[in-house]
């Protein structure tokens, strides 16, 4: 399917890829930070503001009704995308970070107290560390960490030992943004559930690469951002099981989330509105629906297969360069490669790669504890998406050889 013609046609849908930076053709390898948007997604966003923009759920007028029904259709499309049981289990947020903060805040208000613990892993993004740290500080609970081995794989024996009677929630990433490790979350969830502990999955790095089925996984919460799945920035999703969402107190107060307000008492609206205070991000929700259609048409299986072909090719080519050390060599990986080139500082390499038109991420990737584990200041991270090509990987390899000469 992914022959040269197909890729060229696919790339035509991404106007941003067809430009030169510093007189060099742009090679975009920072897809784990955010990936690019196809024209059809951009058009939906622009079309929304040209045709039906209005505030939803309260207007009786035509535009408001159109926007409301389109917004709720988007919710249904997300529900189908992750196979949630109910549409009202899909809560729209600003992104993964807000989704996790929502759960951390509401969950800890109800269930966390002194002496309790929350279990996370050593490979978490700061956004799945700090909200829990804040919740633990507020309640005098403890944060416990599942260790990893040198390949960047979670140590499952150690994990189960952390699940004592005080443990109230497990919060683990589906895919490591730095290492690309795909965690065996099915087993992680099963083990936690044997101890009656709910599990939150940070799916930010998974949803554009792996088919996610929240019912099959049986996770209690699943959080992700739209902008890492070919949709705009500023919208994300917090999936939660109906039962647990019903029990949680609201996160923010405001319009939309209420049923009745008097100065004495407010009663809250039903799901999903209880967690969606204020005017939601309607335009981006519509664009997210289009991005899901884009991925479905390509097929996540096909996307994954092509990305793996690129991952294998890039890994092999990188290892041919003397001095390259790859961090994150787990058996199951997405198309992310973190590496160092001899003792060249990742920041130095990043500056030169940038000048050669190659966009990579350098630094600690918001996973400082993980960098401390490997005792390195950071890495160069190449993250591949469906529109990347072998030729772009060749350009990266050539550029890395230039970097090597300059700092050698």
């Amino acid at each position: 399917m992914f022959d040269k013609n197909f890729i060229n046609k696919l790339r035509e849908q991404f106007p941003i890829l067809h430009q030169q930076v510093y007189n060099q053709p742009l090679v975009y390898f920072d897809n784990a930070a955010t990936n690019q948007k196809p024209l059809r997604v951009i058009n939906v966003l622009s079309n929304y503001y040209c045709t039906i923009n209005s505030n939803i759920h309260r207007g009786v007028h035509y535009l408001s009704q159109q926007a409301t029904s389109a917004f709720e259709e988007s919710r249904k499309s997300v529900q189908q995308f992750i196979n949630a049981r109910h549409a009202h289990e899909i809560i729209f947020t600003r992104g993964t970070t807000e989704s996790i903060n929502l759960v951390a805040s509401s969950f800890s208000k109800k269930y966390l107290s002194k002496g309790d613990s929350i279990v996370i892993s050593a490979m978490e993004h700061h956004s799945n560390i700090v909200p829990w740290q804040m919740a633990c500080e507020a309640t005098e609970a403890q944060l416990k960490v599942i260790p990893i081995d040198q390949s960047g794989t979670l140590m499952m024996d150690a994990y189960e030992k952390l699940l004592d009677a005080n443990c109230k929630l497990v919060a683990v990433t589906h895919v490591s943004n730095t290492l690309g490790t795909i965690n065996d979350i099915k087993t992680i969830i099963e083990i936690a559930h044997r101890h009656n502990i709910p599990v939150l999955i940070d799916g930010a790095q998974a949803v554009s690469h792996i088919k996610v089925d929240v019912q099959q996984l049986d996770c209690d919460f699943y959080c992700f951002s739209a902008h890492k799945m070919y949709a705009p920035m500023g919208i994300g999703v917090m999936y939660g099981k109906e039962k647990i969402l019903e029990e949680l107190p609201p996160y923010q107060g405001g319009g939309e989330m209420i049923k009745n307000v008097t100065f004495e008492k407010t009663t809250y609206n039903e799901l999903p509105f209880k967690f969606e205070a204020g005017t939601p991000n309607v335009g981006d929700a519509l664009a997210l629906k289009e991005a899901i259609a884009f991925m479905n048409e390509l097929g996540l299986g096909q996307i994954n297969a092509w990305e793996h072909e690129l991952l294998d090719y890039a890994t092999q080519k990188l290892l041919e360069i003397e001095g390259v050390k790859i961090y994150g060599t787990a058996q199951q990986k997405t198309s992310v490669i973190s590496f160092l080139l001899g003792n060249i500082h990742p920041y130095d390499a990043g500056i030169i790669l940038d000048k050669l038109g190659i966009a990579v991420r350098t630094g600690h990737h918001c996973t400082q504890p993980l960098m401390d584990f490997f005792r390195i200041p950071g890495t160069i991270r190449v993250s591949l998406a469906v529109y990347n090509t072998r030729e772009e990987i060749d350009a990266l390899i050539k550029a890395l050889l230039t970097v090597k000469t300059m700092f050698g």
Partner: protein
Amino acid sequence: METYTERTLTIINEFGLFTDWMDKYNFIIEMGKTMPLIDAKYKTDTYLISGCQSQVWLFAEYTGGKVCFSADSDAIITKGIVNILIRALSGLTASEIIEADMAFIDRIGLREHLSPTRSNGLNSMIKQMKLYALVFKTKYETNK
């Protein structure tokens, strides 16, 4: 002793020789290698200016009415850029450092390193150098 303006003109002229970005960065890398290095005993958290991507240690001392800087960084390009700042400012009086306009950074085409998103600490470095100068000025030069 060259004035601040003369020093920056020298630097601008040096950079004027390069038409190619790669030659410019090779020059910055060379500059990184000739930096007046901070005494190992000061390479501690107290003297650390933490950027997002690379670390810089900066030390300043006040001798004979002049402020002298030494530094180090774990990234060589950052080190080269710090050395450019040191060449421009080290050995001047506290007042000269406080008043230095730093526009030459723009003229040698390193403006991008001043942007806050770069997070390489260049901004905080300039701020820190000026802060040292201000502290020395207050401590040693007021009420004389």
